[in-house]
């Protein structure tokens, strides 16, 4: 048994945003002696089956299996920091659908709430390719605008589809998920939060820093975080845990890279871009 209190870090995010892939890559990185990570693997304890399974898929450049709804895999890593102190990290890995359901069904699971109560901090994953944006009709198509300007007021309600909460903008859903956290009775601010912009390799060409990308692409979330900096202490990272497109046809070079070097972490004060544990430092110190 370890003689120190474990740190529980929540993996937050809507479906398919890279939470489990990050976990798989992290499990490899802490064990990879070629990567000088700030947190290193110390020893195995308890059940590592889940971590080994997802890490294997990640090493083979296969899609990491998504978590089914209503399942929570608790991943445990016993690590040591640069000073030789033991650090036990617990990651309750929930399905992204469970976060969607918080928004759309207005419910959360008791196990998630329990994890929240015990959490030291969290990582909020956002996938740039999966954003739902609030596109107004008047900005969508000039031809539509022109027609609407001259036409008599039409009753579009008959042709419109019903409101579906799941199609609400990503930034709105994420703000609500954070509000749910901060409105829990047991919430103790400040909650330390790493915003992880996943698949960073796909947007790195725009030359924005992760913080700039967040401000431009998810301005409502950015405003919320700036307004609520007493509740959420945030730092924004760009992360490419997968390293690139998995399809061999599209990305033949990926398999040739050593797994640790596929990984990229971008953000303020990141010293080693392959060391994913740098994104955890601000959450556990």
């Amino acid at each position, binding site marked *: 048994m370890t003689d120190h209190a474990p740190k529980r870090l929540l993996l937050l995010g809507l479906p398919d945003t890279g939470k489990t892939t990050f976990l798989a890559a992290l499990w490899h990185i802490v064990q990879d002696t070629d990567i000088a990570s700030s947190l290193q693997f110390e020893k195995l304890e308890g059940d590592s089956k889940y971590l080994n399974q997802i890490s294997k898929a990640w090493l083979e450049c296969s899609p990491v299996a998504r978590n089914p709804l209503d399942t929570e895999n608790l991943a445990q890593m016993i690590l040591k920091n640069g000073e030789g102190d033991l650090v036990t990290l617990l990651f309750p890995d929930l399905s992204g659908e469970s976060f969607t359901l*918080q*928004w759309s069904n*207005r*419910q*959360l*699971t*008791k*196990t998630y*709430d329990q994890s929240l109560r015990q959490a030291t901090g969290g990582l909020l994953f956002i996938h740039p390719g999966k954003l739902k944006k*609030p*596109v*107004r*009709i*008047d*900005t*969508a198509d000039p031809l*539509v*605008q022109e*027609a*609407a*300007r001259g*036409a008599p007021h*039409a*009753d*579009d*309600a008959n*042709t*419109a*589809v019903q*409101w*579906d*909460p799941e*199609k*609400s*903008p990503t*930034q*709105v859903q994420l*703000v*609500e998920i954070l*509000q*749910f956290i901060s*409105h829990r009775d047991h919430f103790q601010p400040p909650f330390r939060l790493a915003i992880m912009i996943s698949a960073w390799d796909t947007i790195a060409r725009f030359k924005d820093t992760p913080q700039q990308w967040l401000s431009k692409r998810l*301005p*409502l979330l950015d*405003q*919320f975080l*700036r*307004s*609520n900096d007493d509740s959420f202490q945030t730092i924004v990272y760009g992360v490419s845990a997968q390293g690139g497109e998995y399809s061999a046809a599209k990305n033949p070079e990926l398999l040739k890279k050593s797994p640790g070097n596929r990984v990229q972490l971008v953000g303020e004060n990141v010293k080693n871009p392959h060391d994913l544990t740098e994104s955890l430092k601000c959450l556990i110190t």
Partner: protein
Amino acid sequence: MAATPETPAPGKPTGLWPAAQAPAAATPAPDQSKSDLISLPSGAELDESGAAKLAAAKPVRLIVTTGPVDAGKTTLLTSLYELFQSAPVANHLFAGSLTLPAFEKRCHLSRTASGADSPDTPRTPFGDTKYLHLAVCSGSSPKTCLDLLFTDVSGEAFERAKDSTAECERLSFLKRADHLLMLLDGEKLVRDDKRWATAQDSTTLLQSFLDSGMLAARCMVKVVFSKYDCLLAAAADKESCETFWAATKKKFETKFGNRLASLQFAEIAARPKRSTALDFGHRLPELLTEWVALSPRSRLMDFEPQVNLPMRESEAFAARHFNRLTAS
């Protein structure tokens, strides 16, 4: 969008927070003891009880939007919310909302996700008073945050209130209003056959608010030409429209200028459809700035002597004393 009429119980006041602080009718809560799920707040528009709870917990500023059906009351609110979706508004940051799904639902018909060809706003059904909530923070340092509550009431309620002080007395949220917007439908103001009645209805409504004693003396009133893009698009009649609007403003000032703590005017286009000369949310940032900056309540708390007035201290005391009596 057609709304299902929903009539409140006769004689039941709509919008009196102190009354709403009494325990609300119990809603059967789902049995969660056997479930692994915890219910979260619905995020729907707040009712009296929800608004009262918020007001009890922290200072809120109540913005009441009034006007007939289809004047653009809800669109004003959804457009303000939409502005925050893309950037801070007039250096104010979005700081949260207890009614995000309610805003989203109201924005749906103006977004491409609805599949509609032209933007629209669902009509607010006639019924009990509902509130939308928006918290904002100053973008500059030091950070100050403020909770804004907006009424979302059917235009039908105001059409009734115009015709009957008894109906007006049911709109008890008026007594708590910090800012009151009277929307005049710009689409009608530019039409020769509609403008006179539109202006008349608005003055009658304000008269009813005042004569029924429902409007707090401190409330800051703004008479608003909504859908201002209609005026810009009415090329041939633009001058006569402007003349009419100027005359309407003068009429308001003459009739109500001495009965209100503040009476101002504005032209807005929350979602301009008829002119490209105006940006989306035209003049809404300015309105927001006023709502945040100007608080009738804090103004009343300012008991410092106004040194620039050539007045004896006894006269100044009397003036403050009677101002307080009038306001209460």
